[in-house]
């Protein structure tokens, strides 16, 4: 099996690579590339993302044909894809970080700044927070409710259809921190930095 981590200059992805390689060992081949043919032929795709919504969308669009290839992979061919952090946020129709920016439009909704309630909540939301699992998601197999995950973000994904939400976390409000829509998965937290329980989520995705 081939799992491809999409390398589109979206910031620091070395931790994502390290964690997937740790979980995969020799059983699964982990590719790190933006090569369209390799993405097309892989079994699963990981879409990481750091920095701003706009910078990630821009970086994705600079690579000719990448967003079409991802669209073909996830929407037309319905193969498993995992978005992490801004990778998840880009599933939305639109994001409002820096300036209004069009997303991939895979899961209808928007990405907006977390309400800090006049400074009551510090932003970025950095650190370990518990997840409240609201839907049985395949990537949460053997992951207990209220497990701690590592977060670092200032913006949140607000999907229109609440049935895609698989987990939320409590910070200022109930922030959506995991989604599952058919073959598309996303986590706002960083499984690659969430210790053993995070690696379990990666393992679940690899073994889908």
């Amino acid at each position, binding site marked *: 099996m081939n799992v491809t981590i999409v390398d589109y200059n979206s910031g620091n992805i070395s931790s994502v690579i390290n*964690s997937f390689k740790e979980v995969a060992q020799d059983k699964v081949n982990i590719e790190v590339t933006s090569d369209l043919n390799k993405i097309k032929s892989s079994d699963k795709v990981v879409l990481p993302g750091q920095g701003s919504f706009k910078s990630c969308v821009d970086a994705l669009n600079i690579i000719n044909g990448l967003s079409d290839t991802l669209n073909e992979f996830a929407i037309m061919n319905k193969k498993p894809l995992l978005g992490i952090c801004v990778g998840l946020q880009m599933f939305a129709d639109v994001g409002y970080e820096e300036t209004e920016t069009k997303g991939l439009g895979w899961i209808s909704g928007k990405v907006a700044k977390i309400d800090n309630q006049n400074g009551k909540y510090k932003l970025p939301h*950095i650190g370990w927070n518990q997840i409240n699992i609201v839907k049985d998601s395949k990537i949460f197999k053997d992951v207990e409710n209220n497990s701690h995950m590592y977060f670092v973000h200032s913006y949140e994904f607000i999907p229109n259809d609440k049935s895609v939400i698989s987990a939320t976390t409590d910070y200022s409000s109930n922030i959506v921190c995991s989604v599952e829509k058919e073959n598309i998965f996303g986590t706002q937290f960083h499984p690659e930095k969430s*210790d053993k329980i995070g690696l379990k989520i990666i393992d679940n995705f690899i073994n889908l």
Partner: protein
Amino acid sequence: MLKNRIIPCLDVKNGRVVKGINFVDLKDAGDPVEQAKIYSDGGADEICFLDITASNENRDIIYEVVEKTSKKCFVPLTVGGGIRSVEDINKLLNCGADKVSINTAAVENSKVVVDSSKKFGSQCIVVAIDAKKNGDKWEVFTHGGRNNSGIDALEYAKKMEENGAGELLVTSMDRDGTQVGYDIDLMSKISSKVNIPVIASGGVGNLDHLVDGIKLGKASAVLAASIFHYGKHSVKEAKEYLDSKGIPVRI
């Protein structure tokens, strides 16, 4: 609920831990990779390396250390010490650091903070402030505490937030190494001034000091070195103690 973080810090010189854990089960007491792994297995919320390598020739060694550590530790890794440029930051991130902590370069050229937070995102840019009390204010020091910039620490903290820092690592130079506790006044003033998380550092001698840093100093995270060295306290003990005092921690 967001938990308060406990961050053990290791001083690394020429690729070896200078002050470190002196546990009996440790094969090599000077190996940063092995020590970082012990901390992360013990429940550390993040790991911090401070590179105190003096000579420029040996600077590259830290990259190798970071690369090896990031393949073993799956909690966030922050690396500070000697970072001068956006290119230095790029190299550390590529080696597997999750965040970098910038000190002197941020004072001398704030463009480094602006440019790097734009390029890599605020989430990985920590500005480290070494502050020393002078009268009724605190001044920012650079070059490992050797040079006084004369800059007011509170104003500087606000400016660094505006420049794109994602977190501030605030060290009281008056308290550092004394084991008498954090400078609570400094921590709470800076924490109230900015809307980004503050990591308290400098002066921890016992577990009550960690409690004070969070409760009174309003810090989001507490960094400590010496109490975790030589097995005086484990990270697990520290977390259980904080939990018993009603502070939310990840256990």
